[in-house]
């Protein structure tokens, strides 16, 4: 079974803090993705990566950056957290066939 692990299920941070959300997959997948999910808005793609050190902007990259130093790990970084970044963050990985496997999600609250 594919396993996608997100480091935290719940996170509370203060405005202005730098926040790291970590995601690790164990299936040697090339492609990894970060989404945020908000009520009424569905899943929106923030960034994705199709190879180590490669990244592509998704639909809503503003206020975020990513890092992919190793194939299995894809990190989402909030340089200076703001209250409008309070959301559920979902990581996914994929290897051909377009089927994405999701982690359990990180519910981030920015106070």
């Amino acid at each position, binding site marked *: 079974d594919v396993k996608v692990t997100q480091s935290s299920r719940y996170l509370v941070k203060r405005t202005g803090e730098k926040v790291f959300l970590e995601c690790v997959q164990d299936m040697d997948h090339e*492609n990894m*993705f970060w*989404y945020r999910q908000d009520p*009424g*808005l*569905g*899943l929106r*793609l923030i960034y*994705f990566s*199709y190879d180590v050190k490669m990244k*592509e902007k*998704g639909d809503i990259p503003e206020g975020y950056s990513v890092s992919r130093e190793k194939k299995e790990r894809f990190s989402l970084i909030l340089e200076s957290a703001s209250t409008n970044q309070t959301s559920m963050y*979902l990581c*996914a990985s*994929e290897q*051909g*066939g*377009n*089927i*994405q*496997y*999701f*982690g*359990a*999600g990180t519910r981030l609250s920015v106070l």
Partner: protein
Amino acid sequence: GQQVMQIPQYQHVQEGEDFTTYCNSSTTLSNIQWYKQRPGGHPVFLIQLVKSGEVKKQKRLTFQFGEAKKNSSLHITATQTTDVGTYFCVRNGGSQGNLIFGKGTKLSVKP
């Protein structure tokens, strides 16, 4: 543009009733995927449809891809409480495996 529209947004049914959610695109799709997200959970891949007019079944779930490959439907026969969740139709976003999620249909089932 590339969005897929899902209707209804919410559906409440009595256990044992049937349920259908519809997915529409203004452009022809190469394929369509369906994911399910249980309350508090993460999206889980259900199925992918590729061929025009394709119909696939998974137990009580029937998935259909329109002849013009612009719409799809998911029908659940005799709903059970385990069917509760949000059902997303998903299309390809372009290169590198990124996907575009519809906003989902949230199904609740009254026992």
